[in-house]
């Protein structure tokens, strides 16, 4: 049964933690009343935790907007040579199969215009630069079932990577940052690199290395008995890996340098900032290592005026200054990026 309440719930579920925000309503304008993080040790515990956070009785659900990171998520950019061919309903499924080996029978995929992130609609006009995003339907189903088991009735389930991109685009526009920005999303098994400039996504590329590729190096460098010990140390926040950063991120850096180099040669533009999403606070050393090695600044968001530009107020009990980059994904679920940035600035 649904809790008869007008309060809104925004949730971002990643492999590291569950971030949640309680708001006065589900759609702006509203006030963020509270934000909390819940570790993912026990799903039953999350159910109780969410019950307390939202004031739910046993068996009650609350409506929520959720961002997720399916393990095999797909974010790809494509340039159609002949956009008119997209009028054929079979064209895009065939294109996905041929270019990205994605079968639409087993995957849920959305198609966006790379500029502005609007829905690709052949009848409404579109650009030839497209973004394909999605994941295997079974993974969305698993994540949805999990959210439901927490007591959340998901009004929306979004790919956090995509909504975060929308948030960053709107943030850069508000801050009038015109240089290209690189977004790096590092998960256990893989990483995703995105480069956007203005309101357009220019690069979306998967990298087959994630945190798991660093554990053997940690084990070797520190002389640990096995990878499990290395993993425990890596995530424990009891050891400073800044000194080892260059070695640990060597493979990743090589991929990033290839991506940025290719981009800069092609466009003549230099990457201005790098934004690291998803990573827990104890891995902040990754950002500083990348910044130092690549020679670009790390984008550290200031949420206050950006949230205000989207008609979102923040309660005094919420200290935005203590919320790092990884909260940007959660806040991005709240924004309506259809609105003109000039309109938002006037607000």
């Amino acid at each position: 049964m649904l809790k008869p309440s007008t309060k809104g719930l925004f949730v971002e579920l990643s492999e590291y933690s569950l971030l949640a925000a309680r708001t006065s309503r589900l759609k702006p304008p509203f006030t963020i009343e509270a934000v909390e993080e819940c570790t993912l040790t026990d799903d039953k515990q999350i159910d109780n935790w969410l019950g307390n956070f939202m004031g739910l009785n046993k068996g009650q659900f609350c409506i929520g907007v959720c961002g997720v990171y399916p393990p095999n998520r797909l974010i790809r950019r494509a340039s159609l040579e002949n956009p008119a061919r997209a009028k054929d309903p079979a064209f895009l499924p065939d294109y996905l199969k041929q270019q990205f080996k994605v079968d639409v029978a087993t995957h849920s995929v959305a198609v966006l215009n790379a500029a502005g992130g609007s829905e690709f609609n052949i009848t409404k006009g579109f650009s030839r630069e497209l973004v394909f995003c999605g994941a295997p339907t079974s993974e969305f189903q698993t994540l949805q079932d999990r959210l439901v088991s927490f007591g959340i009735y998901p009004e929306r389930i979004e790919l956090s990577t995509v909504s975060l991109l929308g948030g960053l685009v709107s943030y850069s526009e508000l801050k009038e940052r015109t240089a290209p920005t690189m977004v790096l999303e590092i998960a256990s098994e893989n990483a995703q690199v995105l480069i956007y400039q203005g309101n357009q996504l220019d690069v979306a590329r998967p990298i087959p290395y994630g945190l798991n590729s660093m554990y053997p190096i940690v084990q070797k460098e520190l002389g640990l008995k096995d990878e499990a010990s290395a993993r425990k140390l890596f995530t424990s926040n009891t050891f400073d890996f800044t000194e080892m950063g260059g070695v640990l991120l060597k493979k990743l850096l090589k991929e990033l340098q290839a991506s940025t180099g290719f981009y800069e040669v092609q466009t003549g533009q230099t990457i201005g900032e790098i934004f690291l999403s998803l990573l827990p606070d104890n891995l902040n050393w990754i950002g500083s290592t990348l910044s130092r090695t690549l020679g670009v600044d790390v984008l550290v968001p200031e949420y206050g005026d950006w949230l205000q530009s989207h008609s979102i107020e923040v309660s005094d009990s919420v200290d935005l200054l203590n919320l790092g980059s990884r909260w940007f994904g959660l806040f991005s679920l709240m924004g309506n990026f259809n609105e003109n940035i000039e309109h938002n600035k006037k607000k």
Partner: protein
Amino acid sequence: MAAKHKNVSFPNWHPNFTIQATLPDVKVVRTGFLVNFVALTFPVLLIGLILVDWMDAQGLQQQIETRKQLLEGAIVENKKNVEKSKEFDIAAAKLNDVEGFLSGNLDELEVIVAIAESRPKAIALNNISYSEMQKKVGKKMVLAPRITLRGVLKGTSADEVSMLDEYKATLKNLPVFAGILDDVTLPEPTQDIDKDLSRFSITIDLKAADE
């Protein structure tokens, strides 16, 4: 692709991947069961209606069979009645003849006695019949009585046959026919030489009642 999801259209950078079909029923009063209820009710109602129609059809079929049997019985009965009706018509015609004869201007018995008494001894009457003949009087068709005498005369000679003419004249002058006689005709008799007899027929036409 995104058609698997309810919200195909989405705001910028916010594609929705919610799988609506597998979300729980969270209404205050759960109505999911109504779908099953409705899904069950319609077939049951349909089967019920078909059953009632079938039973009605069976009832009608039985009624048709019963009516057919009744009709067959009625046809036999009707045939019998038609036959009886024909017999009645024949009898009624005879009765009408008798009634016509009896209701005429004649005193039948007196006529028969007068005819018989006026008969010469050489004449034997085999048959005296009464009938009505159509006759035109002015512009009207009327029924006039006719008495026909059939008999034999002993002898075939001219003298003997002339006796018939005499009998004809006698009949014309019978008081019983006074005022009502129209004509008496005597066709040529047929002679039976071997038996020495002359067979004759005398027709006495009387006037109609309203003539």
